Every structure is written in C-alpha cells, then in structure tokens.
C-alpha cells in the first residue's frame, strides 16, 4: 500500500497499545466514557463526532462516524447538517480573522 491512509488501519486502532499500553488503556476507557449516554444522548454525541471528523479531516473518523450515525438511526439530512456546522465554524474562523486584517489596514492607511 503506497498511500499514507489505508482503510484497513481503522480496524487496528486498538493496536496503538502495543507501544504504550498504559496510556492506550486510559485513552480507550476515557473514549468509551465520553461516548456513553449522558447529559447528551449517544446519538447527539455521534453527530458531533461526525462534524468534528470533518473539521479535523480524519478519513478514519469520517468512516467510523458515518457508520456510527447510521447505526444510531440518523438521517442523511441530519448528517449533512452536522457537517455544515463544522464548515460554518471553519468558515467563520477564517472570516472573523478578517477583522484583524481590517484593523491593520486602517492602521496602515491614510
């Protein structure tokens, strides 16, 4: 496989324990707790995870949370709206910096 990403690697996520078991165990236990039903439903958390997966552009996460949201009965419009939330935040984060640009323009201009 001569690309950086291999879909089969997703199934091997657990193998990160091979090089550092203690932290891996802590991480997976924390991960499990985060995604359990809580003040937010597991379904809501899955949609947040799907959106964040797109924001961090992690192909493994996109695969995993597309399946997970489907399993939790989410509809395609719900899934796409979640991705738009990520897109809006990313777009907004870019645009809100333009205030700094505008400030600087005003500082430097007559």
């Amino acid at each position: 496989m001569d690309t950086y990403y291999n879909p089969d690697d997703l199934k091997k996520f657990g193998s990160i324990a091979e090089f550092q078991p203690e932290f891996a165990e802590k991480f997976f236990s924390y991960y499990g707790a985060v995604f359990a039903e809580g003040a937010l439903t597991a379904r809501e958390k899955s949609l947040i995870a799907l959106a964040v997966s797109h924001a961090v552009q992690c192909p493994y996460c996109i695969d995993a949370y597309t399946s997970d949201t489907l399993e939790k009965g989410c509809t395609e419009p719900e899934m796409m709206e979640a991705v738009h939330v990520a897109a809006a935040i990313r777009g907004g984060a870019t645009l809100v910096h333009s205030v700094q640009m505008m400030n600087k323009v005003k500082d430097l201009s007559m």
Partner: protein
Amino acid sequence: MQSTKSLKATGHQLADSAFQLTVLSREVAETLHLPLFHEKLRGAGLFPLPSVAPTVLQINVGKMCNQVCKHCHVDAGPDRKEIMTRETMKECLDALAKSDIQTVDLTGGAPEMNPDFRWFVEEISKLGRKILVRCNLTIIVANKKYHDLPEFFKLHGVEVVSSLPSYNADKTDRQRGDGVFDDSIKALRMLNAVGYGQEGSGLVLNLVYNPSGAFMPGSQKGLQDQFKRALAKDFGIVFNELYAITNIPVSRYLDYLIESGNYAGYMEKLVNAFNPVAAAGVMCRNTVSVGWDGGLYDCDFNQMLDLHVASPGKHIRDFDAEALGRRSIVVNQHCYGCTAGSGSSCGGTVA
C-alpha cells in the same frame, strides 16, 4: 430503482437455498478465513445449541405480500403464491390445542392476504392464546377490504408488530418501496385511532426497526427514544416498544450485500461482533417455526433456507412439543446475524 419482482420470479440463483448456504460458508471460511458458526459456538461452550420447551409457535402463513422490500429474507412479493391452506391451519390449531404454548406469532409475507387469515385468528383466539401479527402496515390501506383490520385486531386483542425502518420517508421508501412511508403513517394513525399504542388501552403496537443498509442497528433504547420523539412530533403517532433487529444475510438482503459490494465487510462485522451472551439467548431455543406448507423449523430464517428441525416430526401434523423441547438447533453461517453485538430476535435485542 426498487425491484417489483421476487428473486424467485426472476430466476435468480439466490432463490436457491442450497446455493445461499454455499455462498455463506464460502465467504466466512474461504474469503474471510474466519471460524464457521458452529466452531464459534463450540468455542463459547454452546454447541450443540439445545432447545428448551417451546413457548412460541411462529407461523408463516405465506409468502404473498403487497410489498417487495429490498431486505426481505422471505423473498416475498405479489408474485409469490405459496400460502397456507385452511387444512394446514387446522393442523396448527390441533397442535396448539394439545400443547401449552401460549403465544402464536403470525407472519408472512403479508399474513392478512391469506384468505383464511381472519378465520385462523378467530380460531386461535378461541383457544385463548396470545396472538401477534407481523403487519407491514401498508396492507391496512392497500385495499378497502383491509381498512377494518385495526378493529379486527382489537376485537381479538392481537398484538401488532410492524416494520418501520425510519421516521424518515426517503430512508423508509428506499428499503420498502415508493410511497410505503406515507401509507405506513396512515395505517399507524388508524391503529392509534382504535387505541393501539395508547397508554392504558392494553392494545400493544410495537415497531420493528431494521437498518436500511449494510450496517448493524445501534442501541435499541436510543433508537426507541428517537423514534418516539420524531413520530410524536412530526405525525402525532404513539407506539409501545421498538424492536431493533439485525438484517440477516439471507435471500434478498444477501443479494443486496453482494450487489452493493458490502458482503465481506458485513459478514466480517457480524462474526467479529459474536457475543456468547446473545448466542445463549437466541429466540430459536424456545420457538418453533411453521412454514406455509406445515414444515417445522427452528426459525423463519431456517425456514427460508429449507433447514428443517432436527427432531423426528418435521411437519405440524406430527407436532410433539416434548420432543421439540429436546432438539438441537440447526445452525449455519446466517446465525451470526442473531448473535452479533446485542443480539437479535423477532422481539428485538436479546443481550
């Protein structure tokens, strides 16, 4: 494009049960190099899997249906003419009368399309047994002669179990056919109107959720909560419980998996999600399934794969509850579907 014909009518290879069993074993053992189901059971100390005294008689009164759902393990449809005769129904009634099985689960096809359906329900009702009807909902609005089914069900205290894969029209229609969602909503309203699913009515309306695609069902409780919220908010519909059922790789669902390129991935997922607790709780252990021709099986899936019970009497006329309570369940690779994750049965998850 939704097919309007059964695999059988199109002469598809997968209409042959022996071919399906070959395709399943080959995938698990040769392609995926995973253990066969009986080996996995043996590893969990559960092989051979013993039955217990039967408490449920599940009767498939025929393969005729007004729908042609993409995932149907029965390969049911309007072109299927195999339906139970009144004579075989009488043999079922004789078997029930001499046993203490308290629950009769009627399925199909659309069981209501069998011309003797109502007579059969009335006769089972006279025996004082609890009756479940697996109603596809749309049959209620399909023709004027079925419009009074909610009243008929109510009269006999029938528990209605109905498939609804999503509270979203598009998702539902892609699995069950164009317009199915709207008709299902109309039918659910009719059931609600006579009291089904309403608190305190004693009339039980349960929904069946099964995934519209090559993935497993999520938490039954989570899905039920969401279905309750969405159906109440968007349509004012109420129901009792939601059963999350895993799609079993048999017949049209097997065809879908292969055609969509999801077969290996789905089987691998099922095998890797094998749960010994779910395996110990599978419904076939306390169920006897009767085919349209009176044949006896461990479950409706085994029925479609022509895997008869491993008990001396293989026909309802030879029904022997005591012998059936001492049989070993006939297993094959499709059984991985009922033992994955939280498990699956006609009554939802088991673990």
